[in-house]
C-alpha cells in the first residue's frame, strides 16, 4: 500500500473532511425545500407531519403557474439562443484576431458578473422608459441577455482557444471557404461548449429574479410568480414544491451541459 500512489495523488484526510463539510454546508439548506414539499402540513416546522404529494397536485391544477412557467421558458429559450449566438461571434473574434486591448475587452464583457444586478436593472428600466418601450417579456429578455452573456463567453472562449488553429487552415487548404469551414470544422469542435452555453444561459434566465422584477410588465416569469405567492401562507407548501422542481431541473440541465462540455470530449 505504501508505494502504489504517487506523491501528488496520496490521500489527504483533512482535505477530504473539509470537502465533505463544505458540501454539507452548501447544500443542506437547499435540501429542506424538497423535504418540506412532501410534508403534510402548511407550516414549515419540525417535527414532520406525514408524507404527501398533494402540494404537487395543487401546482398542477393552477393555471397561473403554467402561464408563468411558459413565460419563463419562452424568455429562457430566446435568451439562451441569442446569448450563445453572440457569444460564438465574440469568442471567434477574440481567438481569431490579435485584437489590441484583448484583456480589457474580455474584462468589459465579464463586467456584469460583478456589477450588482439591481444596478443593471434600474439602468435598463430608466433607459427603456426614456425610449418609451413598454415593459414586457421582451424587456425581461434584454435584461437576461446582459446577465447571461458573460456566462456564455466564459463557457465558449476556452473551447475556441483550446483547438489548433491550423485545422481551420487545413479546411481552407482542402477547398472550403470560411462559411463551410465554420460548419464543418469549427462548429463541430466547439459544439460541446455551445450546448453547455445554451443550457447554462437557459438555467440562469429561468432562475433570474432581479432583472425580471424591474423589467417585466403584466406577464410574470416563474420566479416573479413565486415571489408574489410568498405573501399567502397557505400557498407556501406549493411554492416549496415548485422550487423543488426548479431545483431539480436546473441541476439536471447544468449537469448535462458540463458533462457534454467535459475536457475529454473527442478524447483530448
Amino acid at each position, binding site marked *: 500500500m505504501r508505494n502504489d500512489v504517487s506523491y501528488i495523488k496520496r490521500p489527504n484526510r483533512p482535505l477530504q473532511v473539509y470537502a465533505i463539510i463544505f458540501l454539507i454546508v452548501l447544500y443542506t439548506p437547499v435540501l429542506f425545500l424538497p423535504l418540506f414539499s412532501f410534508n403534510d402540513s402548511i407550516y414549515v416546522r419540525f417535527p414532520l407531519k406525514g408524507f404527501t404529494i398533494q402540494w404537487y397536485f395543487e401546482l398542477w391544477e393552477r393555471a397561473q403557474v403554467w402561464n408563468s412557467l411558459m413565460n419563463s421558458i419562452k424568455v429562457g429559450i430566446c435568451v439562451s439562443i441569442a446569448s450563445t449566438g453572440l457569444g460564438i461571434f465574440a469568442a471567434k473574434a477574440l481567438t481569431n484576431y490579435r485584437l489590441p486591448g484583448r484583456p480589457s475587452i474580455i474584462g468589459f464583457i465579464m463586467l456584469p458578473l460583478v456589477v450588482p444586478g439591481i444596478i443593471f436593472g434600474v439602468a435598463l428600466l430608466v433607459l427603456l422608459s426614456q425610449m418609451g418601450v413598454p415593459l414586457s417579456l421582451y424587456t425581461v429578455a434584454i435584461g437576461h441577455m446582459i446577465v447571461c452573456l458573460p456566462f456564455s463567453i466564459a463557457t465558449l472562449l476556452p473551447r475556441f482557444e483550446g*483547438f*489548433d488553429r*491550423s*485545422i481551420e*487552415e*487545413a*479546411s*481552407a*487548404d*482542402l*477547398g*472550403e*471557404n470560411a462559411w*463551410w469551414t465554420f460548419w*464543418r*470544422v469549427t462548429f*463541430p*469542435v466547439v459544439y460541446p461548449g455551445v450546448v453547455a452555453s445554451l443550457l447554462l444561459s437557459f438555467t440562469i434566465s429561468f432562475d433570474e429574479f432581479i432583472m425580471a422584477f424591474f423589467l417585466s410588465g403584466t406577464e410574470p416569469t416563474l420566479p416573479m410568480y413565486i415571489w408574489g405567492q410568498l405573501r399567502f401562507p397557505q400557498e407556501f407548501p406549493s411554492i416549496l414544491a415548485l422550487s423543488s422542481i426548479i431545483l431539480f431541473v436546473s441541476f439536471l440541465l447544468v449537469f448535462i451541459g458540463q458533462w457534454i462540455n467535459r475536457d475529454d470530449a*473527442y*478524447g*483530448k
Partner: protein
Amino acid sequence: MTMTNKDAFISIQNVDKYFGKFQAIDKISMDIGHGEFFSLLGSSGCGKTTLLRMLAGFETPTNGEIYIDGQPMSEVPPHYRPVNMVFQSYAIFPHLNVRDNIAYGLRKQRLSKMKKYEMVDEMLDLIKLPEYGDRKAHELSGGQRQRIALARALILKPKVLLLDEPLGALDKQLREQMQLELRALQRTVGITFVFVTHDQEEALTLSDRIAVMSGGTVLQTDTPTGLYEMPQNREVAAFIGTMNFFEAMVDRVEGDTLVLDAKGLGKVSTTKGQRTTTKGDRFELAIRPEKLKISDTKPTTGACVEGTLENAAYLGERSHYYVRVDGQDTPVAVSAQNQKRVISSDQNAHSVWLTWDDDALVLLNDA
C-alpha cells in the same frame, strides 16, 4: 507584367513580406520545376515557413507575385489554389474518423458514396494504412497522423504538395523510414513537392534541389551535391555539414589556375572558374574534413602542411581529428575512415601532416 520562366511550374518573383515593420521575406525570386522535390532549408525564423504559407495562400506577399502553373496567385484565396498542404501539426480534424478526414476535400466534387469510399481506400493503400478507415483521430500515433495528413492532401490530386516540417515531430527511426517513403511517394504521384525543413540531412536525402534560406533571403539554390561540394558563401558552407575555413589572398593567376596564399595552409592552387580576379584579392577557402588526409609522415607528393594533433575522437568506422596549424585560431577538423586498424588515436600533441587534392578546395564568393 513580367514574363514567367516557361519551365518553371512555380515562379516566385521579387516577393517581400512584412509583418508590421518586421521583414520576414526580403525580395526572393526563385523558380521551381514541374515534378521537382524542392526543399526550403534554414534555421527557425529564416522565413521558410512564411514562404510556404504564401504558396498556400495563408499569407499574401507585401510586394511581388507568385505564379503557379502560369497563374498569378495573389488574388486567389487558399481554397481555390491548386496546392495542398501537410501541416507541421498535421491538423487532423479531431471530430472525424480517418475516412472522413481523408474524404474531407471531396465535398465539392459531388461524387457518389461508393466512389468516395473507393478513392479513400486507394489512398489508405498508398499510405500503407488499409483497415484504418474507421479509426478515430485520437487513436492514431504521430506517424499515422502524418500519413493521414498526406493522404488527405493527395486525394485532391493537387499540382503542388506543400509540406511544413512534416517529419519534425517523429522519432529518429520513424523519421528515417518516412523520409524514404516520402521520396518514393513523390516519385509515384509525380507532382511537385515543396518541403520545409531545418534538418540539413533530411533536405540532402530527399531533395532534387534545395534553397538555403537565412534572414528572409535565399543564400543559394542548388542540388544537394552542389550545395555540399560547391557552397557559394560561408553561411551555406557552415550550415551544411562541417567545414574548415581559411583566409586566403591571390598570389598569382596562371591561366585558369589561381594560386593563393592561404593562412594556415601555405600556397595552394585551385581553378579560377568564371571569376575575374587579380593579385591581392582576398578570398575565403573552405575544405570539408573528410577531404583532408592525415598522416604521421610527410607525404611525398602534392601540397601539404604540418600541424599538431590536438584531439582525436574514435567513432568506429571513422575518426575525427583536430589539428592545430600555424596561422589558424581554430584547429582544423579532419575526418578519416579507419580502413586500417588504428593503433594510437589518443596520442595527443604529436606532429601530423595534412594533404588534400586541389579540387577539394572551395573558393567562397563573399569574403
